[in-house]
């Protein structure tokens, strides 16, 4: 019973890890995953993806999900 957590770019560097596996116990939504794995408040503007789809922090998650946290994408604005 676990959830895979992925961190990218500046968030990965800030936390010093790119991946984590956490127990599902006590976890109901993506924001809970962040709290348990990162241990610091969710930085403003952080994007969340659940199973590779953009999601809100309050999106429910469950066993086997992959939850990712990353800064706004920078493909280029113009």
């Amino acid at each position, binding site marked *: 019973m676990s959830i895979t957590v992925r961190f990218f770019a500046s968030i990965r560097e800030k936390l010093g890890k790119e991946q984590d596996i956490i127990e599902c116990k006590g976890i109901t939504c993506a924001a809970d995953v962040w709290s348990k794995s990162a241990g610091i408040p969710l930085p403003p503007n952080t994007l969340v993806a659940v199973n590779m789809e953009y999601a809100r922090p309050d999106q429910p998650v469950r066993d086997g999900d992959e939850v990712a946290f990353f*800064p706004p994408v*920078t493909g280029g*604005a113009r």
Partner: protein
Amino acid sequence: MKIRLVEQSFDPWQEIARHQSGQPALAGKFGATAVFVGTLRDFNQGDAVQAMRLEHYAPMTQKYLERVAEEASARWPVEDVLVIHRYGELRPNDPIVCVAVWAAHRDSAFEACRYLIDELKTRAPFWKQELTPQGRRWVEPEAD
């Protein structure tokens, strides 16, 4: 429709020619090919750029590039789409992305090509880290 993420430098013109010649069913069906190629500059925000590292979330990137290509194909009558996007370490003058659209008429080719490049830049999970004389820095989303 072909979507590729590549780590090594590529030649968009060779790739486009190769793709087209590998699709014999396309012959005679298209009257327009619109192409966008994005290339790494050696300057950004007033600083010299020596190199760039392009990080991405591989399976999600592939999924979103495919989705954007499917959306463009549903919205405009296009015959074929080719998207090639780099990741990893890039040097100035390296092509970053290539979007090619084949359609019967130019309006659809131009519009679908424009849609593809604009959407993939805002939705595909890529992050740019530039190497400047002052060191490495993450590019801010509104900066480019």
